[in-house]
């Protein structure tokens, strides 16, 4: 059974009031993860295949060609995991 954990190496939670969640995909799974995300989310803007500014269910986030993503304005890690689950599974 495939789970979100299969795609994610680490989630860094920035400190402070406005918390960013930085998601780092597993190296061997990053291309697969990015392909899935780019299929489901809408691209608002992209720069040279390095940064993709995306929206998914009113959530804006940025995906990087190196296999990392930044999610903002989420309530907590549970919400992040729900979004990732919907994007990746």
């Amino acid at each position, binding site marked *: 059974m495939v789970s979100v954990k299969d795609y994610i190496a680490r989630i860094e939670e920035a400190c402070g009031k406005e918390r960013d969640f930085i998601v780092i995909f597993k190296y061997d799974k990053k291309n697969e993860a990015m392909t899935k995300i780019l299929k489901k989310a809408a691209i608002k803007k992209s*720069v040279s295949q390095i940064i993709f500014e995306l929206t998914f269910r009113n959530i804006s986030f940025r995906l990087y060609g190196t296999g990392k993503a930044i999610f*903002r304005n989420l309530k907590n890690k549970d919400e992040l995991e729900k979004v990732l689950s919907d994007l990746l599974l």
Partner: protein
Amino acid sequence: MLDPYKIREDFPILKRKINNHPLIYFDSAATSQKPKQVIEAIKEFYEKHNANVHRAVHTLSQEASELYENAHEEVAKFINADSMEEIIFVRGTTEAINLVAYAWVLPNLEREDEVLVTLMEHHSNIVPWENLSKTKGFQVKYVEVNDDGTLDYESFEDAISRKTKIVCLPHVSNVTGIINNVKRVVKIAHEYNSLVLVDGAQSVPHLPVDVKDLDVDFLAFSGHKMLGPTGIGVLYGKREILERMPPFHGGGEMIREVAFDKITRRCSISWNDLPWKFEAGTPNICGGVGLMAAIKYLKNIGMENVTVYEKTLTRYAMQHMQKCKTVKIYGPEDASVKCGIIPFGVEGLGSHDVALFLDSYGIMIRSGFHCAQPLHEKLRLKSSARASFYIYNTREEIDRFVEVLRETEQF
């Protein structure tokens, strides 16, 4: 003048490529890279001299003890301390500050006393004082910072009083790179009979630091930011103060005698000499050996040369970064008041976005609060990106960094 190209040959990691680009490491304020001389010293220790230190009579232990003691001597000379008795090895700056908090402040401060810190501290020079104040009831007072990030010395003079028992400040801000006038603070603090603890994490690796000239009572710094390994740091303390302090941790190594009294059925304990009184348990012997190698490496270059070179790089970087329309540098515009640290923001991008964008090009910088949230709030910054330089960085790397930053203009 130092030759960065020759120096770079000593740093194997700088040959790496990250994301198919040559590594540009601009995060030395978080931790520095290590030269092969340090890596070799660590390897040689484990291959030839590894044993526990002190109180063993065999040859290997003698060798390890001698190396470990030599490391203390080397540190003492590096910061011009009177002797190795004033040099306590700890895990890093954080542990050094906690040692002072728990072994000096805890037994000496009462409800009516005050600890004075600045708003530009790293969290490690805030949290121990706030924690202890809850137990002991003393006040923690904060010295203001000006809008450009410099220390407000008038606020310091207003805040200090006879109630102040210890003043804590960074020698160099880990966010802005601003060099504080420690001598000025120490002179005033001593007039009020207050001790001074200086966080030297960002100064000792980059400036010549002379504890006698500064007249500081305590100086804390980390080995890993000055080419040494992680897990080793230093607390310098004036001998007469350290002698009056009780130990921080209890265990082996830090005792002279643990005598069991058959009548009271208790143990009476006497402490070991300085600095071992503060180094309970088996210490980080190899870390000390690695730190000694790092100091020898820096001394060979000359700390004055390190400072001059980093200031030149910083000035060069600031001049070129200012040409990017989207970049805003925080803090003072004058590079001469700073060490090699540049905090900045990019229009339309959060600090983590900036770091991830640069990472795509193999450029490593820091982003976030850098463990200094109060300073960011004071400067009205949500967070910042931070480029920090060391002896192995070059103008060409800065040119590439600026070139990549300019790409953010299209975003």
